[in-house]
């Protein structure tokens, strides 16, 4: 998931009887699957939770460009380079759709970005891992975007209209990302040298567990899920989504002729799902706290981009003002 551990600030969920007439009216709309739109009344905690979740989602898209940017100048062919650039441009676009949706809640884009830079706002833990070899571009597309799709497909039905519409646009574009990633791996496995095949396996070994962590902590460790589900901001639990992802990914992994770094991963005839091993939650919380391999580098890169672009934004503004004055004096 691109948003992990989003706080709702709510200790206990109110029953319909405990709600004020406004709250009840709101909840009944949500229950009836009527989308909430920007000008509709909404509980303050709902608005705040959405701003947190959507901004975290947007930050993830933007920071998500960095691990891939690492390989633009090193892509093996012109075709791969063009595909990679198109994908990175999409991530920027997805970030912008989401910031736009967030602004409909009255949040300020600059303020939210400032929170990211100060370490007050989160982004997905997955982007704090380095991309060390070319196969990582395949694995990131296949596993990371694959995990994002599982989450985002469900979010298309989220209760807030602008967020839901942004998700629909994003999902349309994501499947290209996953396919281009898988194709990079397929080509390496089918036509590559022994060394290239090992590169693929090494990449999967490094990204497998972090991809499973993208869905967030297990349901029993996810205190905010219940309220988010009642508001239909969230539609399926972390564990449900993780299981869906594993079930659809393992056959693709086997088709590649690769393995997962999990000795407990096996098909369970009885449940009709794959069983898998325990996730290292210690690692997950450390990365989320800012102690992952690339946290500092990612934020430093984002800050640098904003700082070094200041003069461009100021120049554009000065030019716009000048043009406006010219027009006014001509009129």
């Amino acid at each position, binding site marked *: 998931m691109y948003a992990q551990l989003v706080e709702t600030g709510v200790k206990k969920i109110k029953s319909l009887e405990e709600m004020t007439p406004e709250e009840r009216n709101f909840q009944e709309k949500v229950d009836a699957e009527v989308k909430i739109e920007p000008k509709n009344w909404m509980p303050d905690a709902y608005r705040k939770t959405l701003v947190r979740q959507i901004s975290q989602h947007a930050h993830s898209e933007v920071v998500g460009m960095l691990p891939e940017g690492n390989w633009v100048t090193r892509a093996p062919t012109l075709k791969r380079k063009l595909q990679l650039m198109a994908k990175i441009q999409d991530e920027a676009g997805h970030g912008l*759709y989401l910031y736009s949706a967030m602004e409909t809640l009255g949040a300020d884009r*600059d303020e939210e970005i400032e929170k990211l830079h100060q370490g007050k706002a989160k982004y997905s833990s997955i982007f704090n891992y380095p991309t060390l070899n070319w196969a990582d571009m395949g694995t990131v597309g296949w596993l990371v975007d694959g995990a994002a799709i599982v989450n985002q497909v469900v979010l298309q039905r989220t209760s807030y209209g602008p967020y839901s519409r942004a998700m629909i646009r994003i999902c349309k574009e994501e499947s290209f990302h996953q396919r281009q990633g898988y194709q990079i791996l397929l080509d390496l496995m089918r036509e590559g040298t022994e060394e290239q095949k090992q590169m693929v396996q090494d990449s999967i070994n490094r990204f497998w567990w972090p991809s499973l962590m993208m869905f967030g902590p297990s349901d029993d460790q996810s205190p905010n899920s219940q309220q988010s589900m009642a508001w239909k901001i969230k539609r399926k639990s972390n564990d449900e989504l993780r299981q869906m992802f594993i079930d659809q990914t393992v056959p693709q992994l086997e088709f590649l002729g690769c393995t997962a770094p999990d000795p407990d991963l096996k098909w369970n005839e009885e449940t009709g799902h794959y069983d898998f091993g325990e996730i290292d939650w210690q690692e997950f919380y450390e990365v989320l706290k800012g102690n992952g391999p690339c946290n500092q580098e990612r934020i430093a890169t984002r800050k640098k981009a904003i700082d070094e672009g200041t003069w461009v934004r100021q120049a554009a503004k000065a030019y716009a003002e000048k043009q406006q004055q010219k027009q006014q004096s001509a009129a």
Partner: protein
Amino acid sequence: MSEWPLFEVFVRSKHGLNHKHVGSVHAADARMALENARDLYTRRNEGVSIWVVPSNNITASSPDEKEPLFDPSHDKVYRHASFYKLPDEVNQM
């Protein structure tokens, strides 16, 4: 980028269809808003024409007005062709 004003973006997806609201962009001026909207909302042949409108120039109805504005049309079934039952012989009308 909040120092740049917000523009709402409308895209005509095909000739003959209406422009439809797709989202918003920040830009220093209208020209830049058009360029940003083109990069953001039409990367895959989604449009043949774009409008951008400063968001603060849009006047919108409020959800509270929903009933006074739209309820009056509920009970005017006679505004629909299906209200008028004609004999089978002339029902192609």
